[in-house]
Every structure is written in structure tokens, then in C-alpha cells.
């Protein structure tokens, strides 16, 4: 286990380097001149040149890349061009609200989807399965904007069941504002997840051990809820890891409509503002999360699936 971890972490160094390279290349040819954004509508050529020098933007790209590598290794992300705030502070301030919304929403969605996924794969091919497909696809086709506008207007404004928008930094206080976005998140993503888990579970039902279990005379529900579910953990965890970026970026629309000061809107704002230091930091942080999420996945694989050995 220990050697596995070391190997995996060492193995992720080339990946991290690759991510830094791709992020740097893409975002250095993207977007407008940050100098212009900083001095605004009355900019003079002199001022633009001053800023470019000040921020090292006039240096050759490889030098800039070297600086970027140095910054990310030391976790010194610098300051945003647009808001002039420290990026590490922006990330730290945004991560709480983001995760307060997305982690519970994501967790509930996963639990409900796994249960529904089991049910529909249990009733595979039957009428319940067919109806579920239709419902799931309806859920997947309606754009998130539709859910948000509708939920905010009817549930929050007309029926006054929830606050319209807002956020409270006090710990339990914040959830009063987050319940509605969480419900909408659930509606939005349960369709896709159920479809995914249904597929994954059906693959398991064709495995030999299921046949063995059935042959042993185990009842069908027992086969499903014990053996199939347990062995579906691998695809479930895979899906969970794949959705890590969503935990941060996926809440973007919820954040702007419900006034939640999270990381999603920081990232999208940065894209619209050509705020390169923020984009580069966010892309890098999220990639790191994904890479380490993948390592954790592998460990979980080994824990739930005895067929997998960690070397």
C-alpha cells in the first residue's frame, strides 16, 4: 500500500507537468491583454507598456512558463488582475460556500441515484425501466436554467418556501439558503446518474458470480442488494471522481442566481475577464484534485474489489 502510494504520486508528476504545460499554452493565447483590463477605458500606450513590464508579460514565453511552474510548486498563485485580491484568499473564501452547496447535494444525488439505479436494473426491460428512462431523459434534457428560473420563481417567490437568494457565512445558517439549490441540483443530475448506474449495474448482473449466487438459491433481491451493489462500487466511485470538477464548476449557474459566493463564478468571471492568474490557478487546482481523486479511486477499487491488486 505504502509503496503503491509513493509510486502513484511519483507517477503523477509527469501528468502535473503536462497539465501545467497545456494550461499555460492554452491560456496564454487566450483572451485579451490583461494590461488593458487593468487600466480601463482611458488607457494610454505608455501605461499598457508599464503594466506589461510590471507583470513580466513582456518576457519570452519560456521564462513566463518557468515562473508559472515556480509559482504552482510553491502554491503562490499571486493576485488576480481583475479584482486585485490574493488568489489563495479567493480560493479559500470560495471553497466553503461551494462545497456547502455541492457536497451535500452531490451526496444525496449519489445515494438516490444508486438506489434508483438498482431498482431500474432489477426491473430491467420492464415497464418501470422504460418509464424511468423517459423520466431520466426528461431530467437530462431540461436545461439547468429552466430548473433555476422555475424553482426560484414558484417555490421561493410565489410559494415562499425558501429564500429567493442569499448566503449566510454562519455555519448552520447557510443551509437555509442552500436547500432550494440543492433540490434543483438533485433534479438536474439524478437523470444522468441513474442512467449511468443502471448501465454499470447491468454489466455486473452478467458476471459469473451473480450466476453462482443465483445458483446457490439466493433470492433475487439479495443478489442485487448484496452482490451487485457491492461490486458496482467500482463504477460508482469512478463516476464520483469524474464529477469532482463539477463540484466546483457545476454550481456556476446556481451561484449567480442564488447569490452564493463560490468558486464556480470566480472561474467563469475569470474566463470572461481574461484574468489569467486566476484561470491558471483554478485549472491547476482542479486538475490536482482530479489526479488525487484518481489515486483514491484506485485505493477504493482495491478495497471493494478483491480482484484488483495494488502493486
Amino acid at each position, binding site marked *: 500500500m505504502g509503496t503503491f502510494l509513493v509510486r502513484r504520486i511519483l507517477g503523477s508528476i509527469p501528468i502535473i507537468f503536462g497539465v501545467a504545460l497545456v494550461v499555460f499554452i492554452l491560456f496564454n493565447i487566450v483572451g485579451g491583454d490583461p494590461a488593458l483590463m487593468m487600466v480601463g477605458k482611458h488607457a494610454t500606450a505608455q501605461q499598457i507598456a508599464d503594466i506589461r513590464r510590471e507583470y513580466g508579460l513582456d518576457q519570452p514565453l519560456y521564462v513566463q512558463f518557468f515562473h508559472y511552474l515556480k509559482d504552482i510548486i510553491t502554491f503562490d498563485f499571486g493576485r488576480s488582475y481583475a479584482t486585485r485580491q490574493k488568489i489563495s484568499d479567493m480560493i479559500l473564501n470560495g471553497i466553503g460556500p461551494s462545497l456547502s452547496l455541492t457536497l451535500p447535494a452531490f451526496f444525496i444525488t449519489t445515494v438516490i441515484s444508486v438506489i434508483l439505479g438498482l431498482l431500474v436494473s432489477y426491473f430491467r426491460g420492464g415497464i418501470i425501466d422504460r418509464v424511468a428512462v423517459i423520466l431520466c431523459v426528461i431530467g437530462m434534457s431540461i436545461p439547468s436554467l429552466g430548473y433555476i428560473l422555475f424553482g426560484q420563481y414558484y417555490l421561493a417567490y410565489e410559494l415562499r418556501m425558501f429564500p429567493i437568494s442569499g448566503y449566510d457565512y454562519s455555519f448552520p445558517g447557510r443551509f437555509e439558503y442552500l436547500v432550494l439549490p440543492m433540490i434543483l441540483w438533485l433534479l438536474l443530475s439524478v437523470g444522468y446518474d441513474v442512467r449511468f448506474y443502471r448501465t454499470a449495474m447491468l454489466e455486473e448482473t452478467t458476471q459469473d458470480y451473480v450466476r453462482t449466487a443465483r445458483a446457490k438459491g439466493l433470492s433475487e433481491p439479495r443478489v442485487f442488494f448484496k452482490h451487485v451493489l457491492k461490486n458496482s462500487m467500482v463504477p460508482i466511485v469512478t463516476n464520483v471522481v469524474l464529477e469532482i470538477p463539477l463540484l466546483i464548476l457545476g454550481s456556476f449557474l446556481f451561484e449567480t442566481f442564488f447569490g452564493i459566493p463560490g468558486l464556480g463564478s470566480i472561474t467563469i468571471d475569470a474566463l470572461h475577464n481574461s484574468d489569467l492568474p486566476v484561470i491558471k490557478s483554478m*485549472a491547476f487546482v482542479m486538475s490536482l484534485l482530479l489526479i488525487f481523486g484518481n489515486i483514491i479511486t484506485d485505493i477504493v477499487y482495491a478495497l471493494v474489489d478483491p480482484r484488483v491488486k*495494488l502493486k
Partner: protein
Amino acid sequence: MSTLTTTPDSIEIGQPLPKGRSLWQLGWMRLKQDRYAIVCASIVLFYFLIALLSKLDLIASPWDMKVADSYAPPSLSEFKLWLGADIFGRSVMYKTIYGTRTAIGIGLVVTLLSIPIGVFLGAVAGYFGGWIDEIIVWFYTTLSSIPSILLLIAISYALNRGITAMYVALVSTSWIGMARVMRGEFIKHKTREYVIAADSLGASHFSKIFKHILPNVSHFIILNFSMQFMGAIKAEVILTFLGVGIQGTPSWGNMIDDAKLELARGVWWQLTGATVAMFFIILAFNILGDSLRDALDPKIK
């Protein structure tokens, strides 16, 4: 890398099938008996037909004519008014149809470009292994470690947006899934008896890859095709919503983006048009995907 091979993308499929009744023939027989699959296949074909007719300017043309007042509500009096009018009084029905053409176009371009790339790179990596494998795996792991939505936006920005930029962005992110599956399958198949037999008969690498192994794993391509097609259609909507999508011609993404400015005043028809159009094709692809998976699954006899 761990020694893991069991991912949902790459299930273990028993032994290559005996000659005579190929996987495909078997699959086709099964598919024909599946009523739902037939209906869904017809729906998909119907969408392709609409797209083709629209491409030939036979229906919903011209879409940019003023046919009613600004934001005229739906009326059953004429086909083009069934879904009302947009801000400039243009027929939302026509825009939905034109949007179908845009969506099918995107789906086709993206899948037809990304699947060959994915198949080729995955096959080469899995078949040859060694440093070729390492490089290809490094490359796609790097790309897939960057959240795809950021990558999509970045590539679109870098290529000055517009439809070409979107094609490149979607192709460069969507080949990865195919490559992963193919690599896994080729690693499994290259040590199978039939490949070893072909090898002993002096078959070239090229012939082993494309003549022997590929036909045995080709059903993954079909499954991947339907998934990517859906993915591309939905990505268009998201990208347009983020301001890096299609300009000037109708697309479902544009229509949904417009809804942001319209829903508050009670104009629901553009959103509905685009959503319903998206709903049926995604539904059809979903059910068809399920049926194909069942039909091509060699374990179900």
C-alpha cells in the same frame, strides 16, 4: 498505473464468437425483435432526415423571415406559428428545425472526427505497449485531468470562437473516452489465441490491428458513437450558454440562451421548442444505446 482493467467502459467479453453467426448478425437479429429499439432508430433517422431536408433548404427556409410580431405566442393556425415567434418575429418552429440541422451537424462532425482518432490512438497504444503506450496514455491522462469544460472553453477562446473552434474543442476532448476503451480491449485481445494464430501465419501489425482485432471490438465503437453524439449535442448548449458557441445561425443552445432574457416576461416557447427537440433525440439515443448494448452483449444468449 494500477493493474486495473475492470472499468465500466471495458467489460470482459468472453471468447471471440464462433464463425457463422457473428456478433453483428446475432445483434441484428436481436435488435429487430426489440420494438422500442426500432421506434428509437426511426426517431433518430427522422432527425437525420429533418436535418438533411433543412440542409437542402426544402423545409423551414428561410428561417430569418419575420412571420409575426415580436414574441407572438404560439398559434395553431399555421405550421410556422406552432411555436410562436422570437424577439424579431421569426418562426420558433423554423428555428427549432434549423437547430436540428445544427445539432446533427455538430454530432456528425465531432463523432466522425473523434472516433477514428480515439480508435487509432487507443489501438496503437494497446497493441504496441511500451513507450508508445506511455506517451499516448500520458497525453490523454493530462488532457482528461483538466476539467473538460475549462478545456472546451479555453480551446474555443484560443481559436477565436465560432463553429470551427467549437468543433476542434469538442473533438479534442471527446476522443479520450474512445481511446481508453480501445486501449483496454487491445491489451486483452492481443494475447488471445486468434491473434497469436494470425501472428504465426505472418500477419503484419497493420493487418492484426485492423483486420483481426478491430472487428472483434467494433461494437464498442457503435456504443461510443451514440454516447458521443449525445455529448456533442449537449456540449453545444453549454458552450453557447457560456458565450463561446454558435453565432448568427439558430441552434438549440442559442434558443436556450435567449430564454434567459425571455422567461421572466413569460415567453416560454423558445425554451420549450429547443428542449422538446433535444428530449426526443436524447431519449432515442439512450434507449437505442441500451438495446444495442444488450443486442451486442455476447453473454446474453
